């Protein structure tokens, strides 16, 4: 077992830290530490320009193979990249769905033409993506997809009709990957297709959903005979591809996420020292517990990323979402308890929240999206511990 990074990796750390220090300045100074969870609605245009600045420096898609415009970085260097990005206060990435989800899926399952067509826009930060999975009746039960895909002989293309929901950044996106039912007789995870849909067309309507924070980061998306530009794989392979994509989601960016968590915890600690909460035994215990939880999240992630020789690494990966989501939600509550009575007072009417207030409210979503805590526990019990599967209708 070895925890430290080697010299070449530390040199890489210096390189990316230097680039960020030089570039997160001037017009981008204002978006440092902005656009993260609870703040995604802010600085949309500036963050799109920042995405292109990153691309020019060659710092988008760093984990992709070089032939597709990436840097082909090792796991260690990707970890370092995400850590340094978060440490420098790099803004929430508007391109992360394309870079982290759509791109790797296209690289894995796309044809040469599809790769040629879609990857450069993601790589260059010029085309943004959103994810069309959840539907009103397909939440935790993701296989209950009702959105239809019909092959239109006249248009020589698949056409999509139906509704998606909780679609993050749909209002900013150029493309959406959509799971839709290609076989109307099929049920559950059979008969699905994985489609790439241009958002800029008459058959696509985006309606923002106002969240409990008063802001809108996710949307309802309505498709009415919308043209699918492409299908990835074959009709019927949608579930396989869609699940493979979710596998790309849990990876190296988790350590960057933890650096953002650290920034939040640091703010709470500074506040507690300022307002005297640091003297309350209960607050001391909880801040300490939060600190321990975050540090151990890091070592859990490092075990997860170090590969499978250990035998129990799969289970380290299985518990990861439940761990960070529960931890983060507790941190949100801790923030309010450290704020005390001040926590009720808004920054500005009608509903401008401070960063910690926003943390409190927004972290309630962490234990819901991307698989609720209850779904996560089922997965851990079934796949990790071999307990019986839930009955599925």
């Amino acid at each position, binding site marked *: 077992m070895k925890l430290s990074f080697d010299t070449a990796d530390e040199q890489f750390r210096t390189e990316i830290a230097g680039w960020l220090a030089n570039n997160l300045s001037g017009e981008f100074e204002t978006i440092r530490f902005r656009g993260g969870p609870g703040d995604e609605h802010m600085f949309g245009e500036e963050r799109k320009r920042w995405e292109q600045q990153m691309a020019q420096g060659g710092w988008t898609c760093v984990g992709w193979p070089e032939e597709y415009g990436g840097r082909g970085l090792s796991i260690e260097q990707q970890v370092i990249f995400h850590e340094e990005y978060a440490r420098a206060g790099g803004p929430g990435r508007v391109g992360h769905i394309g870079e982290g989800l759509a791109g790797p899926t296209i690289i894995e399952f796309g044809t040469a033409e599809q790769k040629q067509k879609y990857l450069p826009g993601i790589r260059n930060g010029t085309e943004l993506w959103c994810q069309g999975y959840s539907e009103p009746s397909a939440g935790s039960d993701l296989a209950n997809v009702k959105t239809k895909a019909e092959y239109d002989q006249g248009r020589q293309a698949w056409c999509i009709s139906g509704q998606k929901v909780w679609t993050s950044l749909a209002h900013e996106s150029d493309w959406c990957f959509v799971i839709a039912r290609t076989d109307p007789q099929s049920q559950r995870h059979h008969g699905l297709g994985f489609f790439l849909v241009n958002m800029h067309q008459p058959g696509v309507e985006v309606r923002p959903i106002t969240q409990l924070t008063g802001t809108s980061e996710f949307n309802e998306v309505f498709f009415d005979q919308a043209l699918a530009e492409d299908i990835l794989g074959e009709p019927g392979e949608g579930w396989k591809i869609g699940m493979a994509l979710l596998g790309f989601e849990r990876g190296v960016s988790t350590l960057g996420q933890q650096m953002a968590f650290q920034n939040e915890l640091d703010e709470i600690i500074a506040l507690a020292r300022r307002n005297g909460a640091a003297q309350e035994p209960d607050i*001391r215990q909880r801040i300490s517990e939060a600190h321990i939880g975050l540090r151990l999240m890091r070592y859990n992630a490092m075990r997860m990323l170090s590969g499978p020789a250990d035998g129990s690494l799969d289970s380290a990966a299985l518990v990861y979402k439940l761990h960070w989501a529960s931890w983060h939600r507790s941190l949100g509550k801790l923030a309010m308890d450290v704020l005390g009575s001040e926590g009720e007072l808004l920054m500005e009417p009608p509903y401008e929240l401070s960063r910690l207030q926003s943390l409190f409210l927004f972290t309630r979503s962490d234990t819901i999206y991307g698989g609720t805590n209850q779904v996560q526990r089922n997965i851990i019990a079934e796949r990790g511990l071999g307990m019986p599967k839930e009955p599925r209708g």
Partner: protein
Amino acid sequence: MDFKFTEEQVMIRDAADAFLLAEADSAAVRTAMASELGYDPAFWRALCDQMYWHVAHIPEQYGGLGLGYVELCIVMQAMGKRLACAPFFSTVALAANGLLLAGNEAQREQWLPRIAEGQTATLAFHGGGRAWDATAVSGEFTGSGDTYTLNGDYCYVVDGHSADLLLIAARNSQDQHELALFMLDADTAGIERQWQATMDQTRKQASLSLSNVTVAGNARLAGCQADGSTLDTLLDLACIALAAEQCGGTDAILRQAVAYTQEREQFGRTIASFQAIKHKAADIALKSEVAMSAVFYAACVADEYLAGSAGDGELAAQLPEAAAMAKAYCSDAYFFAAGNAMQMYGGVGFTWEYDAHLYFKRAKSSEVLLGNGAWHRERIATGLLGPANGGET
């Protein structure tokens, strides 16, 4: 970065599990725990003569194998899984570590080979009260140079009634700020040892009463810092080993309880098929995985610490925090696991016949030993927030 077991470490783990499966089954544990000695001498001999665990991390020049703290923790974890009854923690994690930290060359050469031969040893330092650091020492020494005289009462001495060798912490009766460690034979005149019956019968405790115990000057370990910091470091190293044992117990009771729920049927199905049961198991599994990360992070830190100037100084400096995190997290994880496992067992979990209560009692006793979760969280809180009650740093 390569935070996983090496092939050799996997082999050590598998060999340890196999050995203990054969030698420390439930019947063996129950026989051992019912005796005042607390272990089967034949088992201890086998552990020493066949497995060499007692000298795993002792350098080769003193008759050891020269392996690292990670390997020691692998063995502790395996023993925790089986509740193996042996004077291992006391001999290795307390006494041998004390010699490694505080003995000079001559003292190590004098005592470590005796441990290598299979003699048992322990540490006596606690004078009562709730603290679990050097401030808990109340025994006193007088004298200097050629002879010392020790006096005082010691409690919570693990295996103190049976150990061949004793490591004794004491304060200078003339200057309470001067703390020293003495290594002596347990049959030295003036030592009274009293076995204490304990709720957790799988780990034995004794109280010691020292009355004008006279030892030669070279019994005083030369490298022990007078300010208590060496003892605190020794306790940190012991915490990591104990956390490894707790981590093993957490995993074992989870697996045993899950296996039981896979067999037990109610309402025409195994109770493992109910989400109420699955979610309990999943919550334990989460803590078990995080505990594993905590232990082996801390073990890596301990390795670097014991490597001294040859190691990674930055990592070594994390020893107090790593130990506090591991002990805090694993203490609570184990008790959570054992308590919830008992609930999963239902009525039979409350019987003497099933092993659930053995784990439950061990979880509580090892939580308290060397400081519980709250104690170690307060240590960390002091680092993050300053001392409690407006004290000076």
